[in-house]
């Protein structure tokens, strides 16, 4: 006990009476110690309170989750013969009694309605949409969309998108070319779903990049939405924004839009090698024999990956016009080029494999190994 008392007295004296008499380095060290001790204690207190508050929030979430889930579960098992208005009239007063100003309840209610709306279409989806509006949640979404904070805007856009509140498309279009990439993507995704007349209008005005990641998201939305009227994407293949061209090329490929053939062939001379490569890939996939000559003409000026793609496309087209060219490529110094040329020869459905077997008899040992590789169907190219 004496030792502890002595220690406490020493510390107290050090930080009071003696502090000013220490040299500057000792003084600094003492202040750093004091700062670290206080900071550590504060962090401990913060972590403890945070855990307690999390536990409290979880309790509230669990409680409201149970209420809301029960209510929505009853809603989905409602008799199908009942009219939509009757179902709404049954549930609305009950929901209205909830303390909707409670943040936790609000969060749970919106999240659950959104989840159910995503899972159910038809009458249940309609009931949920009506309830969403009657409870004033659509106004809250609109308010969020016009918030200053980009995270809140995204939240509102997602809600509007999920609940298919089409009148909000006009509010959302302004964000489709926003500097903030996340906000931009969410707006574009929502606009496609919400705009009734011109869902691809944002492509006309897109000046900011549509990142590859966003292209993946938009591609999924466009290709999965059966209700969407798909335009000819060739109209955007002359866009000054390379990322718009890239996205549209992917869509041209997916929807097999043959009417875009001429524009795609023109893109073989594009300054961006990624666009050239994608165009070549589409030419192969659409088997546009008319573009073979253009591909051959650009072949020798291209980087390796575009060359490989050209060989691949020539193989897919297999018109026979460039058979000698493909044969000549198997004597290239580049193994990848050789392999791709061999695969291209093999792609000729009628004689491909036979040609390779003939070639096997006449070629080098290295090429023989490559031919064996290409002929082995267990190895995917």
């Amino acid at each position: 006990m004496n030792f502890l008392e002595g220690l406490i007295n020493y510390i107290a004296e050090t930080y009071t009476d003696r502090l000013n008499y220490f040299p500057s380095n000792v003084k600094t060290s003492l202040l750093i110690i004091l700062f670290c001790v206080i900071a550590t204690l504060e962090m401990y207190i913060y972590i403890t309170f945070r855990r307690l508050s999390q536990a409290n929030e979880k309790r509230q979430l669990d409680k409201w989750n149970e209420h809301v889930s029960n209510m929505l579960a009853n809603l989905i098992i409602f008799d199908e013969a009942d009219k939509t208005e009757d179902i709404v009239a049954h549930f609305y007063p009950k929901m209205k009694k909830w303390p909707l100003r409670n943040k936790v309840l609000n969060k749970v209610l919106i999240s659950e309605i959104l989840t159910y709306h995503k899972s159910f279409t038809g009458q249940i989806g309609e009931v949920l949409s009506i309830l969403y509006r009657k409870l004033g949640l659509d106004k809250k979404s609109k308010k969020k969309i016009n918030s200053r904070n980009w995270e809140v805007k995204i939240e509102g856009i997602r809600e509007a998108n999920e609940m298919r509140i089409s009148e909000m498309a006009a509010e959302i279009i302004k964000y489709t070319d926003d500097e903030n990439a996340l906000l931009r993507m969410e707006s574009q995704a929502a606009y496609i779903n919400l705009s009734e007349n011109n869902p691809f209008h944002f492509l006309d005005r897109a000046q900011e990049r549509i990142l590859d990641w966003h292209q993946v998201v938009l591609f999924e939305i466009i290709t999965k939405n059966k209700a969407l009227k798909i335009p000819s994407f060739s109209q955007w293949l002359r866009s000054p924004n390379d990322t718009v061209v890239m996205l549209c090329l992917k869509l041209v490929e997916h929807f097999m839009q043959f009417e875009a053939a001429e524009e795609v062939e023109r893109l073989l001379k594009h300054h961006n090698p990624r666009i050239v490569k994608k165009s070549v890939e589409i030419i192969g996939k659409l088997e546009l024999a008319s573009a073979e000559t253009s591909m051959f003409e650009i072949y020798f000026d291209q980087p390796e990956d575009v060359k490989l793609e050209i060989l691949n496309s020539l193989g897919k087209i297999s018109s026979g016009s460039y058979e000698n060219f493909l044969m000549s490529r198997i004597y290239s110094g580049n193994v990848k080029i050789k392999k791709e040329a061999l695969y291209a020869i093999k792609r000729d459905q009628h004689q491909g494999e036979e040609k390779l077997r003939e070639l096997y008899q006449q070629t080098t040992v290295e090429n023989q190994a490559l031919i064996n590789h290409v002929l082995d169907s267990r190895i995917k190219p």
Partner: protein
Amino acid sequence: MDEFLATFETFFNNAVFYYALFVMGSYVALALLSAVEMNGYMKKNSYVSYREILVSPLAPPVSILAPAYNEEATIVENIRSLLSLHYGNYEVVIINDGSKDNTFQKMFDFYHLERVDFAVDYQIPCNEIRGVYKSKLPSFAKLTVVDKVNGGKSDALNAGINVSSKGLILCIDVDCIVQEDAILKLAKPYLEEKHMVIATGGVVRIANSCKVEDGKLVEVNMPRNIWPRFQVLEYIRAFLMGRMAWSRLNGLLIISGAMGLFDKRTVIEVGGYDHSTVGEDMELVVRMRRYMHEQDRRYAVVYIPDPLCWTEAPADLQILGRQRNRWTRGTIETLLKHKDLFFNPRYGILGMLSYPYWLFFEWLAPIIEFLGLSIFIILAVTGHINWEFSSILICMVYFFSVALSTVAVLFEEMSYQQYTKGKDLVKLLIAAFLEPLLYHPLTVYWAIKGNIHKFTGKNTWGVMTRKGFSNTKTSELTDQTTT
């Protein structure tokens, strides 16, 4: 003599004080940078739905490369776990690096392998590949097994690169527990960065005492053994604080060997993994970065704070010592090999900041610490120590260290909060108090030993055997690591 010793003591006190201030200042700067980066990442990714990339045909194709050496106990389970990851477009390439046990036979039998006529394009050097195997069963079509002559981890990865067919390569330790969405998260930066991404890495976590079911982590627990527990704290500090900050600066020098996703073309252009170093993971990243600078190409090395990979940490001090010894030698080898980067403005952040930091704080810090301690003992024995000042200095370093570890725990709490049980949190906070006293001196000792081994030519990899998770359906990773 006394006058000299007194002058030396003053000099020594000041040197230690200012060095400590410098080190602490740099840690505070890194913590602040890390907080900014982490906050940005968490905000940005709370709105991301990974579902799109999972099913999309536009997702970048990935080859998982996992070298296996004497892994017969767990190889079948490990492969099964890799084959069940959530991603649409990937292949798994297991490289049997001349195992002396039944690793290859186990794979051969369980996965119904058969040899294929694979013509290997040796784009980067590696030992002879004896054969490439595919499964006869369509359900394992993603799997390719490479059987090769033993050449070490780097050599095995190079062989895997030569056989892989996709544009991105995920190099992992085969015995790691990989989170199901790991590839999705690692691949995302390749689709969204302005500049070309050459590598991405994620947080590696400690799996000791965690519950594992069918090769998947189902319950996170704090290790029961004290040594892995210290490593939990150490990893949180290093990954969530250190590497996030370096990622912010685009100055990362290391992507953990346990899991890293690389741009294959760049890896091939730089010549693949270096066989001559035991720190192949760091060396590769440094070489890729310097290559990009030399080519005048803009690039990024991205770090993701998500816990993507769980590994078994050594619980045995001898094995832990060997691991740290190897890490030290790896760091020295990389730094010496690329010594021309030191304060070389041509290499930007890499030369002016990352390299000097690693030199002063990763390589030289334990040596300086050891020298400081030795001089302190000499001065104490000769009676030339100002005990009060020395005690205050030691206290400053100790409390700073505790505060820094507590900040790391706070980061963890505010981000992923993996340790949800209150008692686990308490254990972690207690570890923060004990670590500077019990664990840190050992890490210094191992680092010194690593330096001695490096400069006396003892450059072995060292045995690093893990207990692993058993073949039972549900198991708990024990804290016992066997030699």
